[in-house]
């Protein structure tokens, strides 16, 4: 399937680059349907590889790349369930999303996240699996999970630790603050900044450049410089599930879901 249109995402091959477009209203919240479609996408990747030299992830939603996990679904699914069943469901979800993230992280072709606007939580973690992050001038990044009594659960901490200095990771994680693209470039997260609305165009130009080189050499270079921290990723799931079992988390999720004020995304 070189082209596919799903309910939350679509993909096609454009000028030798696989383009995965996220398009779930309002801001690509990652819930069970998007997870299923991401799984379908990674299963299709081996077949797409033959006709492509790069993979671009981007969003067609105006609000941004992705606001992260679908917290409303997470909260609503836990209601009326036994604690153990709810916890089991969360672990299953995490193991599945980790499998998706790990597959993209290890994908032999060069991967590029073209992000704009809100790139929060699980959306930030999805960008972090890519080899190169190209950000629109208005992109904004955040790991807000501690506000809910949780840690990032889609592989964020091990991958941030892989890519950035530990002191910066602590600041971003422990304050839960959002930060702009200038900061993101300063700390080494974002490698290229695009003008407003131009991230995909810049990503396509970068993918075109990547395509000039020998595929096997590029894959070997990537494997050499980008180790995947599998043990820490597994440990992250365990810590997340331990924290999720506490009553404070349900209360934090309830507050977020029921918040109808203008500031739910502000700390």
């Amino acid at each position, binding site marked *: 399937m070189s082209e596919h249109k799903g309910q939350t995402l679509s993909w096609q091959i454009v000028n030798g680059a696989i383009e995965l477009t996220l398009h779930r209203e309002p*801001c690509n919240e990652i819930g069970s349907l998007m997870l299923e479609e991401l799984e379908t996408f990674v299963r299709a990747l081996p077949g797409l590889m033959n006709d492509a030299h790069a993979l671009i992830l981007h969003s067609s939603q105006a*609000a*941004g790349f992705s606001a992260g996990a679908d917290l409303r679904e997470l909260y609503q699914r836990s209601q009326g369930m036994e604690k153990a069943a709810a916890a089991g469901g969360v672990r299953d979800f995490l193991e599945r999303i980790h499998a998706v993230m790990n597959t993209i992280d290890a994908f032999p072709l060069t991967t590029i996240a073209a992000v704009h*606007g*809100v790139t929060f939580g699980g959306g930030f973690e999805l960008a972090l699996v890519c080899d190169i992050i190209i950000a629109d*001038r*208005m992109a*904004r990044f*955040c790991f807000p999970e501690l506000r809910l009594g949780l840690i990032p659960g889609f592989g964020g901490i091990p991958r941030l630790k892989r890519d950035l200095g530990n002191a910066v990771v602590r600041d971003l994680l422990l*304050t*839960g*603050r*959002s*930060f*702009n*693209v*200038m*900061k993101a470039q300063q700390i080494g997260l974002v490698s290229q900044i695009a003008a407003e609305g131009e991230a995909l165009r810049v990503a396509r130009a970068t993918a075109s450049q990547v395509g000039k080189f020998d595929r096997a050499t590029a894959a070997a270079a990537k494997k050499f410089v980008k180790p995947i921290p599998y043990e820490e990723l597994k440990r992250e799931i365990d810590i997340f599930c331990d924290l999720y079992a506490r009553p404070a988390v349900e209360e934090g999720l309830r507050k977020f879901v029921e918040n109808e004020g*203008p*500031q*739910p*995304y*502000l*700390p």
Partner: protein
Amino acid sequence: MPTTEHTLDEILNLAATHFKVPRDKLTPDDDFFKTLGIDSLQALDLLTRLEHHFRIELPDYELQGVSDFRTLAERIQSRL
């Protein structure tokens, strides 16, 4: 360093331009969520534009509970 009044004026100009609100409809003590008709995601967009404009970093936790332009200007002023 610019005065707080100058900073406030620049914030009002930027907000009016970006959110397409007549500049003379904005006053320093307005609740910007209401006056501009924005939600928290749009407030983050405004914050990003202000950070770029003033070339500062303003952590969003400093905006907790802030909803008027004057206090916003004071927060920005403290980072200039």
